[in-house]
């Protein structure tokens, strides 16, 4: 919402400075987004051309002698065709910045002749697009004076960002009311003298859709002389970014901004019959479609999508076609719109003349030659207007106001205000208004206004302001603030609760909290002194849930392993989702922002692999990325999983990547991913010694180089591995690359402990020893099974089992491998004798043979 300072002062009597007004606007909730104080026009002064001689070396240039009102005349080289002796125009001296050409002037030589400044065109001052000549002012314009001040172009322009709850502030008058309420001046009367009409309005209005149109007022003014509107009005419209058209149209725009009351004008000569407010119609056409009709329909834009589709099949003629056509309007913006039956229109015998509350039609628009004008001031259902505007993609000043809610009780006054301006600028004879009422928007108040508006009433306990804001506002002050804003007390004002009637221009107010806001914002938010929130406990206690702690721990643990945390999109391309078990219809966005951001991710891996590939394409192929975030197995809350996932690419191993004098890093592989997965689980508190690792994982992994981590037979904790070549190919990625995912939300909640004391530590006094064994087993025997068999041989004495070599060779026989194992033995009761060791070794060998079929390698 834009307006100028002088416009505001039409309604507000104030001595406040621009800065004070701007500051106050923001502090009462009308946030100022920009102020243009017109400083850019300050350098331009009114100057008179004394002489204009032809430039000695250029046919189209003139050398002017210019009286700038101070000092001796200056020499200016000028190319404007209208430059002549005696012309009074706008002069810019060297040093001035000329906004229209984005140049700061200096003394220069043009074709050998010095030029000490510039006579400017309107475009150079960004006043208009006019550039056929320099500004040509009346003879009596005061030479030496500020051009902007003289031409009244120095009126500061203020733009406020309106919140959607304040339709009353879509007009300058409403803004003035708020400022006056806050004590920054006095609000002038906004009353409009009713217009005395002659005779009934010859055009009647029928409301066929009263639910979409609470009220409609119409008046004919005969014998107007349309043309440009007065300069002051044009300047205000230009200042707020509107283009003056003609007086009749400019008046509607002016009232829209002055009072937040959109009007519409029809050229009465172009309106056929009476007006009907109704929903747009559709027609079903039945019959033969011939080429001529096809081209005609297409030209008129009827059913464009359908017809274009038909045309692509070569179907420009069809026997017995059945197709639906929508009503169409050529709107004032020069575009055609197809209207659906949930849209409200104003129609005459010619068809649709206006899209209700949004935009008029070109056919009945007012032009310079208009002599009889129909002025419309109507009320439109806010939601229907918003929906129609959205569907048609039309943003207008009228829609902006109607979808927020136009003051219903100003409908007739708005018509009168517009009529008065028409009579003043264009003359003519007004008719009496035709006023028709539809369904009122609200029906809950006892007091009913002229246009059927039911005034809302709110009981306001005066203590409520203190209860909600902490602000102490005296009773008299609270009541005075509300009265200044237009709220009228009903009944006694000395009780604890005062009943207020809500003004018709404040559809947003319907409860006591709203009145608290009114009192607070006008009294001053900055008068509320911050008050500490009472502390509930002396020392803060734990505030994170187990899952939150696990998330943080997994994140830090993976970063400590040299991986970088990424945050990738929750939505991924459909085919990526499908590769990882996703792509269900319920998880596809109906309106994705881009085609490749269409499906909620079933896994973190496709996003990470794609990210790694992007980095590789930039020349960074050794990369370790992880993410701890959500994946989506369905659309219910419990379907959102908390997952830690990561990938390593190239040679980005734990130790480091790339070549190094002490040894080059190997390509990443399944064991790097396994180590990451276990580290994340361990950091998150998983009992790593109780986990089982199974060979193989989901389809997207390499079947022989992937694994699945479980806790017990059912609880799936994660997967890891190198990727299937088909997966990588489908993702347009290349390896070496490995990855993992672990499900942090699958970990069981730790048991509540009665004590924080750790179990007693018993240290054996006897020396620990190590013994090595090598077993020959079938190639299919898992190393994990072998180590479990060794450990189970004596749970008391065996403190640890580790694999230090795996070897396959012809000497072992086909399908065999040798696994070398180191067993850590911790005697508990006495130092072991050779016999003890032999017995233990025998038990180990026997158990391995029993469990795995392995034999001690000879």
């Amino acid at each position: 919402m834009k307006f100028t300072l002088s416009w505001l002062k039409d309604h507000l009597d104030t001595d406040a400075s621009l800065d004070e007004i701007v500051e106050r606007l923001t502090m009462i909730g009308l946030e100022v987004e920009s102020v243009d104080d017109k400083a850019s026009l300050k350098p331009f002064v009114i100057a008179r051309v004394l002489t204009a001689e032809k430039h000695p070396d250029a046919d189209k240039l003139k050398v002017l002698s210019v009286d700038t009102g101070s000092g001796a005349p200056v020499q200016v080289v000028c190319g404007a065709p209208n430059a002549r002796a005696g012309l009074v125009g706008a002069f810019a001296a060297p040093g001035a910045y000329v906004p229209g050409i984005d140049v700061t002037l200096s003394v220069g030589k043009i074709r050998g002749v010095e030029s000490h400044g510039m006579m400017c065109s309107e475009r150079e001052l960004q006043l208009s697009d006019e550039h056929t000549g320099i500004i040509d002012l009346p003879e009596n314009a005061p030479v030496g004076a500020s051009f902007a001040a003289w031409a009244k172009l120095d009126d500061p322009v203020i733009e406020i960002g309106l919140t959607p709850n304040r339709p009353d502030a879509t007009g300058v008058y409403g803004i003035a009311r708020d400022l006056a309420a806050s004590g920054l001046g006095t609000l002038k009367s906004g009353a409009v003298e009713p217009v005395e009409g002659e005779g009934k309005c010859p055009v009647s209005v029928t409301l066929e859709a009263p639910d979409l149109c609470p009220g409609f007022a119409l008046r004919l003014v005969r014998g107007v002389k349309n043309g440009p509107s007065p300069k002051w009005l044009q300047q205000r419209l230009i200042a707020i970014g509107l283009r003056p058209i003609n007086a009749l149209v400019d008046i509607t725009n002016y009232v829209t901004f002055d009072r937040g009351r959109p009007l519409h004008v029809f050229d009465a000569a172009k309106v056929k019959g009476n007006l009907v407010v109704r929903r747009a119609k559709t027609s079903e056409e039945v019959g033969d479609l011939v080429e001529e009709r096809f081209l005609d329909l297409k030209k008129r834009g009827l059913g464009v999508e359908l017809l274009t589709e038909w045309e692509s099949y070569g179907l420009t003629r069809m026997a017995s076609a059945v197709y639906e056509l929508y009503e169409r309007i050529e709107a004032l913006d020069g575009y055609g719109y197809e209207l659906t039956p949930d849209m409200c229109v104003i129609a005459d015998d010619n068809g649709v003349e206006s899209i209700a509350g949004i935009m008029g039609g070109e056919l009945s628009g007012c032009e310079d030659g208009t002599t009889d004008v129909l002025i419309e001031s109507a009320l439109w259902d806010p939601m229907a207007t918003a929906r129609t505007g959205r569907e048609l993609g039309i943003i207008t000043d009228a829609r902006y106001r109607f979808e927020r809610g136009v003051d219903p009780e100003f409908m007739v006054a708005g018509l009168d205000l517009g009529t008065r301006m028409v009579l003043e600028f264009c003359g003519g004879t007004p008719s009496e208004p035709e006023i028709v009422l539809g369904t009122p928007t609200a029906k809950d108040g006892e007091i009913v206004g002229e246009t059927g508006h039911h005034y809302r009433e709110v009981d306001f306990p005066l203590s409520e302001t203190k209860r909600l804001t902490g602000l102490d506002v005296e009773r008299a002050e609270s009541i005075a603030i509300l009265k200044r804003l237009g709220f009228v007390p009903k009944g006694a004002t000395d009780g604890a609760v005062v009943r207020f009637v809500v003004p018709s221009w404040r559809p947003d107010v319907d409860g006591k909290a709203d009145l608290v806001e009114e009192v607070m914002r006008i009294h001053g938010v900055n008068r509320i002194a911050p008050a500490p929130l009472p502390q509930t406990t002396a020392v803060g206690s734990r505030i994170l849930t187990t899952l939150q702690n696990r998330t943080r721990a997994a994140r830090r643990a993976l970063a400590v392993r040299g991986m970088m945390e990424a945050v990738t999109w929750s939505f991924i391309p459909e085919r990526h989702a499908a590769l990882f078990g996703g792509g269900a219809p319920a998880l596809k966005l109906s309106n994705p922002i881009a085609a490749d951001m269409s499906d909620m991710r079933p896994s973190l891996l496709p996003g990470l692999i794609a990210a790694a590939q992007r980095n590789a394409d930039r020349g960074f192929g050794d990369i370790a990325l992880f993410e701890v975030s959500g994946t989506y197995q369905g659309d219910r809350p419990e379907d959102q999983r908390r997952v830690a996932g990561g990938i390593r690419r190239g040679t980005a191993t734990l130790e480091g990547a790339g070549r190094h004098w002490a040894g080059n890093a190997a390509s990443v592989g399944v064991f790097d991913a396994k180590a990451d997965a276990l580290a994340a689980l361990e950091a998150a508190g998983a009992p790593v010694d109780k986990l089982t690792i199974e060979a193989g994982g989901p389809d997207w992994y390499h079947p022989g180089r992937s694994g699945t981590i479980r806790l017990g037979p059912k609880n799936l904790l994660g997967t890891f591995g190198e990727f299937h070549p088909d997966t990588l190919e489908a993702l347009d990625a290349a390896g070496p690359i490995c990855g993992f995912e672990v499900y942090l939300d699958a970990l069981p909640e730790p048991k509540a402990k009665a004590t924080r004391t750790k179990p007693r530590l018993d240290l054996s006094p006897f020396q620990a020893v190590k013994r090595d064994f090598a077993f020959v087993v079938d190639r299919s025997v898992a190393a994990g099974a072998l180590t479990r068999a060794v450990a189970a041989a004596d749970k008391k004495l065996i403190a640890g089992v580790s694999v230090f070599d795996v070897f396959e060779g012809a000497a072992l026989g086909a399908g065999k491998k040798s696994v070398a194992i180191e067993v850590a033995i911790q005697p508990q009761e006495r130092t072991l004798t050779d016999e003890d060791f032999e017995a233990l070794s025998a038990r180990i060998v026997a158990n391995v043979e029993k469990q795995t079929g392995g034999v001690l390698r000879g």
Partner: protein
Amino acid sequence: MTDLKTLEATLLAEIAAASDEAAIEAVRVSALGKKGSVSERLKMLGTMSPEERKQMGPAINGLKNSVGEALAARKAELHKEAIAARLAAETVDVTLPVRQAPAERGRIHPISQVIDEITAIFGDLGFAIAEGPDIETDYYNFTALNFPEGHPAREMHDTFFFPPGENGERKLLRTHTSPVQIHTMEAQKPPIRIVIPGKTYRQDSDATHSPMFHQLEGLVVDRTSTVANMKWVLEEFCKAFFEVPSLNMRFRPSFFPFTEPSLELDIQCDRSRPGEVRFGEGSDWMEILGCGMVHPNVLGMSGLDPDEYQGFAWGMGIDRIATLKYGMPDLRDYFNADTRWLQHYGFRPLDLPTLFGGLST
């Protein structure tokens, strides 16, 4: 006697000439071994007369001692030389680079780090961290938050929708973290003090808008909390988060469907340096968050009597305050996983934000 002197001189010369431990061992054997020259002479003592023995005994034993001492000294000397030679041979170029520790290479994403910073501050103020799902119902995202059906404010949210389910209801991606307010109030009786960090989604993309972004929601509900308490909490948070001793802030009236009264908080700052925002100086105002007293309708729909309970809520962009504090120029880069960006703007894994150690020091 002269014979002994000569022998001593010879042996000492041999000892001095021994150049390694083997040579010195050979001298020891030749002098003090079973048949060594000194040992032979000691054996001869037994054949001497007492007078002779009395004279020669100390002399020969003296010879044995002096040769023994010389041997030991030379041996120690040679050992030292051998060590020195070995060490010299073992010398390496210590300027060769070692690999960087994994903990130095890894990075925490700025969003995670900033959430940890926020957690540290609000934990100190007695708030718990709440979370909720990204995929929401229309009811929790809008209706329960007092967005009327068809209201323009709903449209301003540029919502991502899913196709309608069997019951005709279409789910959506939450456009703000506010639905978690409702979930919390439904599940828990006041007093409530929570902050809610999480992902949020709107159909919008440019340098300052991303279709996915992160919000921090706050909610306090009890029987006494006011705008005055809200101002205090948010001012304390901003000072702590931006790590400046004082900030010039202004609250101004605004509008949100789910709060009444509603306010926005601006921070005074200096934006004259490209790519950097300095707080506590300058003359620009930067909007940082929206807040207000929880709307009576929202309390009511969550099952709380708005005449008994009251409270305040606020919401701010985590990515935005991260940008303000740490200076990343384009929001879209947050989600590109460009390793150079992560390396530069990310945080070291062991930089844990705490109040006792400082959030970002």
